[in-house]
């Protein structure tokens, strides 16, 4: 191993060491704890404050993971609010948690999850959205169609919505 390789390795080690790996600051843990408490609060005003924080504050993937992990333990009404907030937050780290909500019993929660996929979904969510756009309840169909319109397949040149429309046209012509 020559000297330049050693230097390069040192550089990357230093660079990676400087990257924040989750909540690096003492205040972050406190902030996240407060937001989590507010989101689960029985008081509607306090809960809205917590959801606003989910939307706009506490940046970082670790924070998003922690917020998404709250979903299974909340009541349906709050689940809808939190899913909407996670969608507005726009961090796709929440995607697995939101996708899990597509399997819950409450229709409004499933519709909220479909809506959120417009912001945090990927190309892989296209088929599920298409399926719901065709066969879901009224609320689900509307949400899935809205998301299909907005969802752009990542890493592909054609947006999913456009490919879906093309496929529908092909089905109609055959």
């Amino acid at each position, binding site marked *: 191993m020559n000297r330049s390789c050693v230097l390069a390795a040192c550089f990357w080690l230093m660079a990676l060491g400087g990257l924040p790996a989750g909540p690096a*600051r003492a*205040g972050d843990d406190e*902030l996240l704890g*407060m*937001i989590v408490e507010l989101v689960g609060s029985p008081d509607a*005003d*306090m809960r809205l*404050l917590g959801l606003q924080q989910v939307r706009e*504050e*506490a940046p970082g993937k670790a924070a998003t993971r922690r917020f998404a992990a709250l979903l299974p333990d909340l009541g349906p009404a709050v689940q809808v609010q939190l899913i909407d907030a996670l969608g507005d937050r726009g961090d796709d780290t929440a995607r697995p948690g939101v996708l899990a909500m597509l399997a819950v019993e409450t229709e409004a929660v499933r519709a909220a999850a479909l809506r959120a996929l417009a912001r945090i979904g990927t190309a892989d969510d296209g088929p599920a959205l298409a399926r719901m756009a065709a066969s879901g309840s009224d609320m689900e169909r509307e949400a899935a169609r809205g998301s299909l319109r907005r969802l752009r397949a990542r890493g592909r040149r054609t947006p999913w919505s456009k490919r879906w429309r093309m496929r529908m046209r092909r089905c109609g012509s055959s």
Partner: protein
Amino acid sequence: VTSKAIGILTLAAGLAALGGVNVFAEEGGAGDPPALDKAFETLQTYDWGADRSLLNPIDEAIIATHGDAAARQALEAKLLAVVTGETTRAAKDFACRKLRTVGTADSVPALAALLPDEELSHMARFVLERMPGEEAAAAMRKTLPQVGRRFLWVFGKRRVTQSTLDGDLEIGVIGSLGARRDAKSIASLTVLLADEDAGVACAAAGSLGLIGTPAAAKALGDFAPTAIESLKPAVADACLVCAENLLADGHASDARALYELLKTEDQPKHIQVAATKGLLAVAARK
């Protein structure tokens, strides 16, 4: 056309433009003393509704004397003569507005003398509130109750003098000191929190909030639990403003203490929500 020619033309145009600017500057008030003198003569009897354009040379002189301390001083003296002289209220109002731009510590005594004047107190504060330097704040502070030092602090009583202004005028001065974030008036404002005039007490709380130092926070924090019901909203509002200022100035622990005080169940819901939001901001700052 060569690049050299373009360069020469650009230079020539720049010089011409600078020459033009100079000409305009000289045509302004400072370069036209007779017009300025005439404007000040007109100002002596000026009243609202009269032709305002006759006073334009004064505005132009203010612009033209920018950066010229001696000329500005002369202008300030002329404006002060209007303020202290036997002129109309409109003329004094106009002169005060101009002093807001050119006024210095030299104007403070004359303006301070107007503070008890029901008609001109507002305009005097209009100048003093924005004037840089300690003199302006000191002049306004002097009108508030003065808190004397304890003599033999174990036995002695704290001596507090009365305000020299009444009612609304006092409220105005309190507000101006708050707007200046004058930390030296905290002791006087703390006394005024307990004033029997609710307007004065509310204004004192608001100004302590604006001042926003740890000492102001302590005064508000100590007073808040004892405040009478009608004062509570104003005090809570002042505490929120104070906490925001503390946080902005890097006193996070003082800000947190105030927010915690407002987050209690006995506060109205909107205050509790605002305090919680403040605590989130404190946590985010850590």
